[in-house]
């Protein structure tokens, strides 16, 4: 664990150098990658570690974002209290959604998480008086943590780098803890875990809430970065991008989702510059990854590495 913490701080320090070499476009791309990374990490807690495939994580990203936007603009709260309340609200909703979704498992769970997040999406579209519907909520501001402005591309980049580093380390600690071991146990043999004495439902519910928490953190980063929030943040496309990052990078690993998220973000940015057909490309990438490389890139690389060693 200490090794992971040390290595991740090192890598983060390396990435912190980016603004010294690159222009705003790449710095912003870096920020977007980190938001996607935190989101993918939150997704991975469910998909990779708990073995619960959800298609509704966008609900927590969008919810936290909307809550923050509404609390700072309509309720006139400062960013500090707004962030706190937004995350609290997201956790409560995650607890509620988890109670409902965990009545089922497997595909039933998946459909319920999807239906629940679509309900929030529909709410964001229709409840125009609160959310401004399809126009979204604009002209939002970024917080000033410790009084420091994060309005410039570079300063926001460093802010999100720190947040991403902290989330990575905390999630790594969680995953390697005794509780984390019980989570992967429920993924692999849930009946056996029950028989051994683990409360499988409670383990899953706690993990669901924790994943919702990190989805909410990603949501705050998202709304601070864009200074704007729109119902698409709650859409199935957002969830799809998140889960694609996880499966492309390799679920069940700590680093895989980050790499996958980076790839998806790169792809999205390049495609947007040339075509408008991101959705279609996303669909094709899904097909290719699922059919050709179902384990994702990181395990794929491990396998290549093992094959290479065997040849020598």
């Amino acid at each position, binding site marked *: 664990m200490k090794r992971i913490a040390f290595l991740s701080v090192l890598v983060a320090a390396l990435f912190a150098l980016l603004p010294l070499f690159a222009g705003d476009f790449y710095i912003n791309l870096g920020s977007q990658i980190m938001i996607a990374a935190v989101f993918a990490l939150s997704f991975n807690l469910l998909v990779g570690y708990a073995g619960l495939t959800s298609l509704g994580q966008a609900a927590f990203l969008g919810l936290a974002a909307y809550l923050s936007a509404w609390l700072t603009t309509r309720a006139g709260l400062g960013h500090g209290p707004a962030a706190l309340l937004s995350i609290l609200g997201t956790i409560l909703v995650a607890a509620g959604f988890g109670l409902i979704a965990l009545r*089922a498992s497997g595909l039933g769970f998946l459909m319920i998480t999807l239906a629940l997040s679509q309900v929030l999406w529909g709410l964001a579209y229709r409840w125009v008086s609160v959310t401004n519907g399809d126009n979204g909520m604009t002209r939002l501001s970024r917080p000033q943590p410790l009084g420091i402005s994060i309005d410039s591309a570079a300063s926001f980049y460093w802010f999100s780098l720190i947040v991403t580093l902290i989330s990575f380390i905390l999630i790594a600690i969680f995953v390697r803890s005794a509780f984390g071991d019980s989570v992967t146990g429920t993924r692999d043999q849930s009946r056996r875990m029950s028989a051994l004495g683990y409360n499988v439902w409670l383990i899953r519910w706690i993990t669901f809430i924790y994943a919702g928490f990190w989805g909410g953190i990603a949501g705050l980063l998202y709304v601070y970065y864009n200074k704007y929030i729109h119902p698409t943040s709650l859409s199935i496309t957002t969830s799809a991008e998140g889960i694609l990052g996880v499966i492309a990078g390799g679920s069940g690993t700590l680093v895989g989702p980050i790499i996958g998220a980076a790839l998806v973000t790169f792809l999205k940015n390049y495609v947007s510059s040339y075509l408008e057909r991101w959705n279609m490309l996303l669909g094709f990438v899904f097909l290719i990854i699922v059919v050709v490389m179902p384990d994702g890139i990181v395990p794929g690389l491990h396998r290549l590495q093992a094959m290479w060693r065997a040849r020598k």
Partner: protein
Amino acid sequence: MQFWIIQSLNSLALGGLLFLLASGFSLIFGLMRIANLTHGAFFMLGAYFGASALRSYPWLNFWIAAIGSGLAVAAIGGVLERLVLRRLSEKPLGQVLVTLGISFIISDACLVVWGGDPIPVSTPALMRSPTFLFGFAFPTYRLVLVGLAVVAAVALYALLDWTRLGAMIRAGVDDMQMTRAVGIRISRLFTAVFCLGAGIAGMGGVLGGPILSAYPGLDADMLPLALIVVILGGVGSLVGAFIGSFLIGFIYTFGSALFPDLAYVILFLPMIIVIAFRPQGLFGRRPA
């Protein structure tokens, strides 16, 4: 009074459309254990096929357009099933993600081909004038739509209960291993059922045209409704899909009319209540 009656009829019409959508989804899930997230896109694709055909060839008969679109979507569904889904037969998660990917492709393709503006579908000529019952004027088409849904329900029921194909489907839903052991060609059965489900959805898209028209995002609007119907009614149950569709039709229509902002939330309350007490849905057999 007029309000309640009109909204009730709208509810029944929506319920009928939802049944056309949800029945296919439920069959596919029940038999093939695939949560076909492309289903909304099939509905939309059918709607676009029909709408554009009727726009380009105004002499075309509405019903022929509906059936033709249904067949076209069924064919596309069949190709998809054979080329892609079959390769992932041991990976239910992969299948679901692939259907998600395909739905994105189809919805974007529709945007490319037909543009961003909705294409209206005119009500068939014979049904434009209102029908008078009990002193009230009812939009005729909506009455017809309800009737069609009932006909479809009866036809599906007959298919399942009286034909060999239906017997094979029921056997597969009940016990896949046994069905294989008895020698039934599962792969053909799967393709047939997938085509059937897709086709009904596609036809439903056209039949819904006069009410909903064909527009980008129709798939995203319809899919969650289908999901909620199936979760509530129970997977693999035709009766569940029927009752669930009309229940949701009523709740959504009245909810939208009375509390337009919160219509989606109102939808989700019956789903929560049902899941809390019966996780397998009202009529589902397997625990979900």
